[in-house]
């Protein structure tokens, strides 16, 4: 690395400063705002300013007034199952693409289309397909003799969250597929040949050579997608609006409802901090266990 003069010692920090300062301002303001107001009673419908100091009431109300525990459970379920499904489906498709049969290149280029859509657009698309009367998916499933709930998959408490996960999986499995495919390409032929000489083939080859070599990429993808699913808002908003009842509320949607529909700013501030703490724990656990030795 370079060290031309003492000016150069300070230069990198000067170059970093503008982005760090603007980002810090954009982050610390909301966090500070939330911290202060989490101890105040404030409903925007009754007052443009916080009304009175309310101690820890807001934190208690989060659990009493909003379905926080249900939203947390939904969020973890959606993020965990969604990431799992997308990773393995994507891996399967990546292995198919990696056969390099004729036409695979073109199919890979087209396959990414769902990932390019805005999540709201993907939401509209599946609301249309899943429409209980007239949608093509219930019609197809009925034709195959698979029962469809009368309120539709999105209107049924048992299937609403699952449907959101399915739409997200539709949208993001291609992302896993093309990135894991790029990872497969980066594994050198020599390593594979060496393993073949040692008698590895098929499943053994995949589980003890391919998969470990893909680990750094896989860890990165899983972290990104887990958190994006954890933050799910757009799809929930368009597909189910958190319903029926509160059956498919995620933490992000719960915050939105309390803050920008009910205008309970104090309560939302308290909930914001609970979410920030949960997210920090997840990110730091991940950084600690998976990225301690960053390999990329």
């Amino acid at each position, binding site marked *: 690395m*370079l060290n031309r003069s003492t000016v150069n010692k300070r230069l990198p920090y000067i170059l970093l400063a*503008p982005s760090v300062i603007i980002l810090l301002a954009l982050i610390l303001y909301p966090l500070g705002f939330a911290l202060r107001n989490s101890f105040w009673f404030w409903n925007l419908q009754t007052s443009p300013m916080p009304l009175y100091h309310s101690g820890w009431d807001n934190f208690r109300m989060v659990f009493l007034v909003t379905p926080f525990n249900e939203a947390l459970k939904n969020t973890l379920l959606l993020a965990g199952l969604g990431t799992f499904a997308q990773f393995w489906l994507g891996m399967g498709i990546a292995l198919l693409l990696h056969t*390099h049969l004729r036409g695979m290149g073109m199919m890979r280029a087209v396959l990414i289309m769902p990932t390019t859509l805005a999540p709201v657009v993907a939401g509209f698309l599946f609301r249309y397909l899943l429409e209980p009367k007239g949608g093509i998916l219930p019609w197809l499933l009925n034709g195959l003799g698979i029962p469809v709930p009368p309120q539709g998959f999105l209107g049924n408490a048992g299937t609403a969250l699952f449907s959101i996960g399915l739409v997200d999986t539709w949208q993001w499995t291609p992302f896993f597929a093309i990135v894991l495919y790029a990872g497969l390409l980066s594994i050198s032929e020599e390593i594979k040949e060496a393993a073949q000489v040692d008698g590895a083939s098929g499943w053994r080859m995949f589980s003890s050579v391919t998969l470990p070599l893909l680990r750094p*990429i896989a860890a990165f993808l899983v972290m990104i997608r887990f958190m994006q699913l954890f933050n799910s808002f757009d799809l929930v908003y368009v597909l189910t609006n958190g319903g029926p009842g509160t059956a498919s509320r995620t933490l992000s949607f719960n915050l939105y409802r309390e803050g920008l529909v009910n205008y309970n700013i104090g309560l939302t501030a308290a909930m914001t901090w609970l979410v920030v703490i949960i997210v920090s724990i997840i990110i730091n656990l991940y950084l600690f266990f998976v990225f301690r030795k960053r390999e990329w």
Partner: protein
Amino acid sequence: MRRHTARQKLAIYALMILVMVFFVGPICWFILLAFRHPSEAYTLPPQLIFEPYLGNFRDTFVEPGNNAPQLVNSLIVSSGATLLSLPFALSAAYALSRFAMRGKEFILNWYISLLIAPPIVFVIPYFILMSWIGWAGSYQAMILTLQTLAIPFSVWLLKSFIDEVPLDLEEAAWVDGATRLRAFFRIIIPLALPGLIVTSMFTFVFSWNNVLFPLVLSRGSTVTLPVGTISFFASTGVYWGHIAATAVVAMLPPMIIFLLLGRYVVRGLTFGAVKG
């Protein structure tokens, strides 16, 4: 390279066709919806052959064309967010790529943790702040707050491109007496230009597809196209023809940009972490 028997090939193609139908079929079906007469949105069994109807596009973008200004709004907000992020990201990416410094890993992780933090946490305080300072519903409110995503993303992606510009070239320029600034503009900028363009295209797409910020921070006259589409879920009914027409227009720019990006798609979607 492994050879496949005819039977294996058949099985692989069969699976791949299923995959393509599942992932691309729904998009095609939705595009067809935009060209159907509203009365035919729910015709079952599905009709693949029908008389194309352009009224959905006419209603939304020409006459009365309430969605045409939203298209312009989307362009303004996405381009604005992209242009604003570039100078901030470029200088940070250069610093992180070219200097050894303490806390570098920490700063890189910090940027990425912003990218994966829940944006709703920031948006609600922004909503109140913007009305206090008189920016409620303004373009600049959306463009500024989108930087929480645009800058960290661009720093990561740009760094991966600057990393690839050989250090020798820069050092040769210094030996010839160029200042660091001059070398930056004469060496780094031209050689990392493809990277700058790719990064801008991705930032544009992510801003274009973002719905949460405009949903909360726009007002009637500054609403972006994807948000405008939501209004067709009215209490009086769902206007599928209009939804499909506006959504198809909203999905075109990202699709075209992704096609243009070609081999950079993997790198962009992974913030530069996977070269692809």
